[in-house]
């Protein structure tokens, strides 16, 4: 058996209809990008789920560090003024 020859892992993103973003659908194995796209088409759009597909080698994705949740995502906390709901005095004014 040839364990070392396993095909690499790809992440699949599917756009479900025009105008929407590509959303992560899952992953699969394929020898290269061309086959990854085709496998993704067969695997993740068998029921009309998509109009466009992206595939990305799984190891090409850089991810934020889950252990630094606190500091990495702390800054937006408490900045309520970035949200429309912060501004209550204008409530009731039409078309605002």
């Amino acid at each position, binding site marked *: 058996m040839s364990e070392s020859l396993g*095909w690499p892992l790809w992440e699949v993103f*599917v756009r*479900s*209809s025009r105008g*929407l973003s590509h*959303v*992560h*659908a899952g992953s*699969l*194995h*394929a*020898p290269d990008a*061309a*086959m990854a796209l*085709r*496998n993704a*088409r*067969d*695997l*993740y759009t*068998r*029921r*009309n*789920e*998509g109009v466009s597909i992206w595939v990305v080698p799984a190891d090409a994705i850089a991810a934020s560090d889950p252990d630094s949740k606190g500091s990495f995502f702390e800054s937006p906390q408490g900045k309520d003024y970035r949200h429309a709901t912060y501004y209550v005095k204008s409530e009731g004014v039409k078309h605002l």
Partner: protein
Amino acid sequence: MSEASATRITPGNALRPEDIALAVQHGTARPSEDVGEYALRLGDDALILAQRLGHWISRAPELEEDVALGNIALDQLGHARSFLTYAGAAWGKTEDELAYFRREPEFRSSHLFEQPNGDFAVTIVRQFIVSYYQYELYRRLTASADATLAAIAAKAVKEVDYHRDHSAQWVLRLALGTEESRRRLLAGFRLLWPYVGELFEDDDLTARLGDAAVVPSALRADFDQLTGEVLTEAEIEIPQVPAALGGGRQGRHSEHLGFILAEMQVLAREHPGADW
């Protein structure tokens, strides 16, 4: 649910075999016997291939390929059902009566479609030849004077276009991958190329049908050119092998068809007249 947008499930609105059955029922689709005979040829090719490909599911070299071959088999089975439903209307028969209760000489499949799966390379070569042939055929049939044949072809040509791509991708990979894969692929081409000729043979029926059908010999040049482009990239020369005597269109079949039918028809024939 969070991923609802990526997993939306809808049935689609393409032409289905059930739509043909409805049209037949309402009398809007009424083939002559000649058109029925022609539809049988196309339907039997697709049916026998679907039967062959169906055997791969759970046996493919990788799980992704189980799914891919399954999709191709389902496409072919869909085309078969549409063509057979329409053909049956010429004699008052259903798709199942045609598929399960005809005898071997009454089938109209050509020999290439009946060839065994062999290894993955043989299956890919068979699919490669079939897909390029069917693509040229269906592409022209969309302009058929027979509206139902044209409608079935319009659905089928898009699906077969993908089969073409799938098999061409694999021809390249097997041809240029490893020594073993190349050896197996070349053996597949030598084994199956003799059956290519039969696909492009004209006869009285296609002549009589005029612009309702496609003249098989007219497809050959485009078939040769487009397969040639892939084969050049794959560094493969078309094997110099003599063409095999066909006869499938007249009911003279390979040794394989009898076994295919024995398996396919056994249950239905044990219970004639039953519904499933």
